[in-house]
């Protein structure tokens, strides 16, 4: 993605942001609240159309990108909430994720031609493999609302993985997870990077610093830093964005004392 700019009714959400995810790398996207991380994500999957800039995927430019084309391009995405289908079992949820691998069409389903059944059994096998990878096969017949939040997150991840993407977009995968679960998630993401590239939006710094190969930092819609975790951590602009302006302790104390004196 190069030179992406987005404005919502005159309010600039992103201005001239560029980002490249290298094959097999985990790329982190961080920034304070409202920095435009999710907007950039939505641009990447066609939910938001950029006002300026180009998206290039595997050497060809994506024009008029639509979300429903995404999986066919080999891109999967998880949502910030879990976004599971409430009326479908866990297994069915994941099978929907395998939509792009389905071959049997409407008429074979209408007349229940055996190929339709076989095709569905194939999707089921794929879905079970994905659930197995995330250690969630035990929940296959359950409905999402009856499951604890971390399990729902795993199911959502399985639904994204079952499409066999080349690029996986993870939107805050660690939100709502405990310490241990986050650790396991980190290991999982590292394993996945052997098979696919990952673009990760996340608030939890320790997770991002641990799993990412490269990091892009956004603040107020602008890119303020990019590089390896170590480079980003050392960048003063990043600290400033997260913690506010650098504070001179001595002057601050003096000002405080002066204020106290006036009151007393």
């Amino acid at each position: 993605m190069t030179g992406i700019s987005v404005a919502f009714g005159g309010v600039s959400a992103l201005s001239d942001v560029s980002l490249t995810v290298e094959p097999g790398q985990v790329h982190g996207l961080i920034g304070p609240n409202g920095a435009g991380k999710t907007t950039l994500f939505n641009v990447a999957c066609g939910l938001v159309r950029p006002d300026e800039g180009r998206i290039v995927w595997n050497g060809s430019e994506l024009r008029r990108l639509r979300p429903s084309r995404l999986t066919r391009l080999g891109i999967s995405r998880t949502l910030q909430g879990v976004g599971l289908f409430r009326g479908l079992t866990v297994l069915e949820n994941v099978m929907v994720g395998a939509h792009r691998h389905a071959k049997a069409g409407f008429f074979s389903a209408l007349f229940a031609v055996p190929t339709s059944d076989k095709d569905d059994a194939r999707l089921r096998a794929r879905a079970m493999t994905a659930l197995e990878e995330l250690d969630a096969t035990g929940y296959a017949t359950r409905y999402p609302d009856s499951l604890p939040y971390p399990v729902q997150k795993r199911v959502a991840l399985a639904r994204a993985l079952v499409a066999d993407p080349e690029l996986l977009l993870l939107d805050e995968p660690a939100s709502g997870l405990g310490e241990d679960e986050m650790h396991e998630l980190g290991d999982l993401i590292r394993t996945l990077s052997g098979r696919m590239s990952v673009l990760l939006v996340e608030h939890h710094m320790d997770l991002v610093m641990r799993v990412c190969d490269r990091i892009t930092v956004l603040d107020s819609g602008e890119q303020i830093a990019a590089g390896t975790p170590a480079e980003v951590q050392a960048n003063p602009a990043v600290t400033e964005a997260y913690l506010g302006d650098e504070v001179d302790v001595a002057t601050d104390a003096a000002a405080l004392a002066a204020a106290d004196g006036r009151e007393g």
Partner: protein
Amino acid sequence: MSQPQEKTAASAGEMTSESPVEATTAANAPSGPASARRSLLPGNTLLRHLVILAVCAVGAVALLELTSPFRNSQFAVLAYYAIAAGGLTVLTGLNGQISLGHGALMAVGAYTTALLLGAEEPLPLAVVFLAAVGITLLLGAVVGVAAARLHGPYLAGATLALAVGLPGLALYYDDVLGGEQGLRVQSPRAPEWFQGFIGFVSGNNATTTKWLAYVGVICLLLTFFLLANLARSRVGRTWRAVRDEEVAAELAGIDLGAWRVLAFVVSAACAGLAGAVLGVVIRLAAPSGFTIVLSIALLTAIVIGGLGSLLGALLGSALLVFLPPFVTNLGADLGLNNTEAAQLAPFIYGVVLIIVMIAAPAGFVGTIRLRWLQARGKRAARTAQG
């Protein structure tokens, strides 16, 4: 990430909530291979549904031969209501689109049948029905394209316009469509083989009424067979996914618009067939038969039965057809005069509707399925503990 094995006594309470939380989805069985439970029926969809179809066909013949001609005609009415309700439950229950225009779509089927059967040399009944389905399907595709862009109350409003506006065409083109009086439908007589069949099965009189009841029931069984195939397949699953979470479905590679239009087209085709059956059973296609009341009656039928369930659509339609005459008779027996007894029927229907919505918001089928899922959850929890 917690392991499934960790879910023992401490969290066993959670296992009881093994059901979908939303009442509206309670009546949907999972798609075929996704339901891994054991069953007496074959797992293969075609075999499974053919077995059910055969059993239902035998049951239907027995039912029609053991009941009076009057009941036969009631079953014919039930057949067209259930066909339309089955189509609507796929649209509303599985795909989440509401339609108040299905009465109007039925009118298209009925008028097509009336016109084609009124010709000098009428085509075979099956061809006429297919034509009625085809024309309604085309209209359904046009409406569906518009509907796919609308949601909730807006969609209800747009389809309401269809329900109100379309019968008006019959008044405007009264030279072809017969105006307020409507068109008489030349109902076909029972063919030779049917008389032989009835003589062989029961020795009853093979009247035209009986033939029409059989036509209705055959259409009903075929429609439900095809709809059940769809609901059990990936198609049904995809429709439900679109209903539950639009963005997630889109990200899974589903073209929302195309799948919505597909649901509308399938549903419209059913409404067209229902209209065609209605035409030959009532022997009249008139605007007064396709008012908004018909559309709303269909909606209440599928809600009472359980949204998204074909069995529910059938049960809801049965209530619609059998309850009013039952109540009227009961009223007459209790000493009410004819007018009062006739007025009692809609009142009782309304009361039943309210009671069902309070006591069983998921409809007949949905409520039973919820109970069953909860029982299964409790069993699973017990085994987990013991």
